[in-house]
């Protein structure tokens, strides 16, 4: 307690040895270094390389992604893990990164470190992602696939009908969103018994 009070009074006193210019400029530079470093480190955890650094991510979800259109396609525009699984917005991103501490726990204790364990948890993991995307109106899909810019004439007749009727804002009383129909587009689906499919 005494030490705390000492530091508090130290903080409240004007500086004796350092000039105001040094302190403000130094603080400014240190801020840039800290903020830049923080964001760089966070971006590093957003790379595909980082995600598949763990065995369980590499052999399970990543392997399933490889056959899908979000991994390889004619134009080479592709989505990596974080494009769909981490919000792009800063505050939401930080929230998701804090949630990810549970994934670190899972990694340390090997909750899905075998194919069998992964298979066992597939439905739970899938449902968590469906719920997240339902709650944020499939924000991560819409970061690339914008409804306003969809050309229905270029879509298949069935796709055009569904998008024009169900997905259009205010058209559907339940408020349909991408994930309601497009489940299992990047990874294999779990046992779907009891899941309401549109």
């Amino acid at each position, binding site marked *: 307690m005494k030490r705390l009070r000492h530091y508090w009074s130290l903080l409240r006193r004007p500086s004796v040895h350092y000039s105001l210019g040094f302190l403000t400029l130094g603080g400014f530079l240190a801020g840039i270094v800290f903020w830049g470093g923080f964001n760089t480190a966070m971006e590093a955890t957003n790379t595909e390389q980082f995600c598949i650094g763990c065995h369980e991510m590499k052999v399970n979800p990543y392997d399933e992604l490889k056959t899908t259109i979000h991994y390889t396609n004619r134009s080479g525009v592709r989505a990596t893990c974080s494009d769909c699984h981490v919000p792009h917005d800063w505050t939401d991103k930080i929230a998701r990164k804090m949630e990810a501490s549970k994934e670190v726990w899972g990694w340390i204790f090997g909750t899905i470190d075998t194919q069998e364990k992964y298979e066992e948890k*597939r439905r739970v993991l899938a449902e968590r992602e469906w719920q997240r995307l339902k709650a944020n109106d499939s924000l991560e899909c819409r970061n690339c696939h914008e409804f306003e810019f969809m050309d229905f004439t270029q879509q298949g007749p069935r796709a055009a*009908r569904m998008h024009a009727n169900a997905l259009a804002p205010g058209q559907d009383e339940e408020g349909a969103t991408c994930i309601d129909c497009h489940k*299992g587009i990047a990874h294999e689906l*779990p046992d*779907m018994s009891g899941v309401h*499919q549109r």
Partner: protein
Amino acid sequence: MKTLSLFILIVCFAGFAWAAEKSLDPSAPDGLRKGGTLTETLPAEPIADEPRASGREVRNWPEQPPVIPHSIRGYQVDKRYNQCLTCHSRTAAPEAGAPMVSVTHFMDRNGQTRSAVTPGRYFCTQCHVPQTDAEPLVGNGFKSAEEVIVGEGEDSK
């Protein structure tokens, strides 16, 4: 002696040259990649396009499994889930505007009609396939039922 060995050497070389000229690389059987020889690797044909929506095709005989008139890229059909049934199941078909799977798919081996597609008819692509724009590999003299009946009628005349 010297001239003899020289002669033998020349004969040998001539023999080698003759053998080299005569190819040891016979032509390959005409499979998917026509032409070429056994040791040659010919470039593969471009992969046929799977049209996104090609329109339903007439069946050539009554029992023919209808071909799939749309792309099925990435469709999951396994123990966990059958993605075809998302639209073609009994309950989903009307809303999706898709034809419901035929009632024969609900019959088990005893002819008993069940409420869901039976395991024996679960794997769609065993019988149903999408159509690509690929040319037929070999000639085909197939006639549809109508053509056969018409032909027979002409024969008996």
